């Protein structure tokens, strides 16, 4: 075990004296958390809506008033009146407005006749978020328009009452678990992947192999030191990220303890994966080349940025095998729901089995010679 500790000591001393490595591994997840968290987290506002009123009747005026009220209230839309439908559509195509609401000539007549009155929304659907926000706002306006002025005392319509059991979760908090996993992975990729192969190419491993160190001591040294580095990165981002994202009560000792356990398990799982991927590699370019691909393949299917229920079938298959999926789920449970270990037992079990299988395969492939 003394030899294993010698390797760990060596790796950690080098790590401590490589501030660039530490910064590289931590800056990207923090930047991503802040930029993506605020970029995606806010409500869409000030969408330009052209209103073409071809009817000019009282019901049409009422629709326009409701649209103006929405404009001055939630600011989701800004209304612009157009007299010419052709000009409005031309401006839509040229990007001057985001949608065109047309109130047709027979709108008032159909309203009064109760004969399926309709208005049309022509929208720029190249931006899904914008078109969904605009359609939602206008849907709300029309729903308000359709409500009777005074409803029955006892409603016969079934309504849905939504009760949220957790406080509101802004997107930056939703993103935090993925960023923590990302910081662990960055450290694993740089410290356990790139530097491991660079050391091998420089002949540093040759120095180990001519000593009496055993194969298992060597593997343990590499993996334990990699895990320690990844745990430091994960805990750092967890604490800083919790403060940035506004996680309630981020320094609760019990929660921190549970998070620490998950960070350790995730770090060990990812370093095992990296060791398996790199155990027979000797070209220093390879880990750099696969870095981006691996990051994308593991991070995005994990549900870190979007719910997995929205993925196509093939991507859900990747998600099932992806250790990030279980890591992100475990962190979400602890950070957003403040659950105990019971809620993440399955995640921890998967990650531990994943580590054992990966490390077992890597050990079988590891050669104690050149």
């Amino acid at each position, binding site marked *: 075990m*003394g*030899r294993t*500790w*010698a*390797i760990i*000591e*060596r790796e950690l*001393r*080098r790590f401590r*004296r*490589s501030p660039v490595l530490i910064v590289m591994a931590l800056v990207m997840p923090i930047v991503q958390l802040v930029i993506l968290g605020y970029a995606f987290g806010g409500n869409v506002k000030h969408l330009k809506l052209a209103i073409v009123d071809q009817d000019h009747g009282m019901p049409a005026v009422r629709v326009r008033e409701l649209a103006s009220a929405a404009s001055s209230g939630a600011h989701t839309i800004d209304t612009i009146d157009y007299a010419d439908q052709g000009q409005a559509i031309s401006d839509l195509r040229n990007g001057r407005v985001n949608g065109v609401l047309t109130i047709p000539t027979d709108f008032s007549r159909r309203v009064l006749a109760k004969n399926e009155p309709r208005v049309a929304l022509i929208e720029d659907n190249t931006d899904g978020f914008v078109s969904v926000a605009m359609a939602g706002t206008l849907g709300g306006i029309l729903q308000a328009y359709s409500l009777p002025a005074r409803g029955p005392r006892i409603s016969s319509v079934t309504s849905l009452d939504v009760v949220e059991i957790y406080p509101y979760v802004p997107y930056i908090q939703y993103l935090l678990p993925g960023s923590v996993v990302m910081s662990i992975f960055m450290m694993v990729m740089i410290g356990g992947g790139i530097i491991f192969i660079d050391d091998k190419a*420089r*002949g*540093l491993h*040759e*120095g*180990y*192999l*001519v*000593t*009496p*160190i055993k194969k298992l001591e060597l593997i343990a040294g590499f993996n334990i030191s990699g895990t320690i580095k990844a745990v430091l990165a994960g805990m750092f981002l967890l604490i800083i990220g919790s403060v940035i994202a506004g996680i309630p009560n981020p320094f609760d000792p019990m929660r921190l303890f549970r998070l620490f356990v998950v960070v350790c398990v995730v770090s060990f799982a990812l370093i095992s994966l990296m060791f398996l991927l790199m155990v027979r590699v000797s070209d220093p370019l390879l880990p750099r080349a696969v870095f981006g691909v691996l990051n994308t393949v593991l991070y995005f299917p994990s549900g870190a940025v979007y719910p997995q229920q929205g993925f196509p079938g093939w991507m859900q298959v990747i998600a099932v095998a992806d250790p990030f999926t279980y890591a992100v789920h475990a962190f979400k449970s602890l950070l957003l729901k403040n659950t105990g270990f019971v809620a993440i037992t399955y995640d921890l079990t998967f990650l531990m089995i994943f580590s054992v299988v990966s490390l077992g395969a890597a050990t079988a492939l590891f050669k104690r*010679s*050149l």
Partner: protein
Amino acid sequence: MNAIDVRNIVKTFGDFTAVKGISFAVEEGEIFGLLGPNGAGKSTLIRMMVTLLPPTSGTAVINGFDVVKQSDGVRQSIGVIPQAMTSDLELSVEENLIIFAKLYSVPRGKRERLITELLEAVELTQWRKAQVKNLSGGMRRRVEIARGLVHEPRIFFLDEPTTGLDPVSRVAVWEMLAKIKRERNLTILITTHYMDEADKLCDRIAIVDHGELKALDSPLRLKASIPGKNSLEVSFTNAPGDWQERVERLPGVESVTAHDDIFRIATGSGPATTLALMELAATSGVTIGSLSVQSTSLDDVFVHYTGRALRDALQEANPLERGPLLRRA
């Protein structure tokens, strides 16, 4: 008992045979050199002896331990300095030594004493706390020499230890190795492609080329084993087709080899042959481009046993390298 006993060792990589059945023995306390160009098989040979590569066939016994069956015993007995500089640049000199002492399970108390002694031996005591990245190439090599000795090995393997060093640093490394060998009664095996290094440092030299052992003896005996006391290296212009035969008939000449317009003439009398050669060239209308006369060197030995000059062999192995690879005493 021999410190190193290599018997008919072979290493193949697919269809390529890097080492073709080499045998030799190194006595205790000897400095033994493996001399040859890059690609000759020296590094493969040393890697088999230090347990980094398993031999395809044959055996190597190091300090009484078989490299395949008793590899741990071999590793405990040897110190190894690989060709590349492999010290941790971010760590201090002392930390590099401590880590390796721990890898060899040197007890804490002994570790301190050994490191202090070794740093004195390699004259790095005042650099003990300095980060290796702040040291010169020669000093880094000395750190590695100290690192390789931190567990008091019986046998020390050095793979081209002075490659890439300036001449002053190279001489410093030679002196250091000679001193350490004397003080510690080490057996040293060194690979090199520097003639002067092999000549000055080694008690015996094995010339290796194309994976084969071409000659093995002390530098003096190797030089004595080839014809001639002096060697002339001459280039000619306008030399006729039978020029080599005419040169061979000059007084004192024992052998002539020609390679790329350079004639290498082994002679028992350098001055007499030089005068005769100049006279022959003048009467035959042949111009002498360059001429040098020297005592028989290891390069002549290399030419004699391999059929080519070491510098040519080096340039074949590294066509882009055009540095002054051959240095004469």
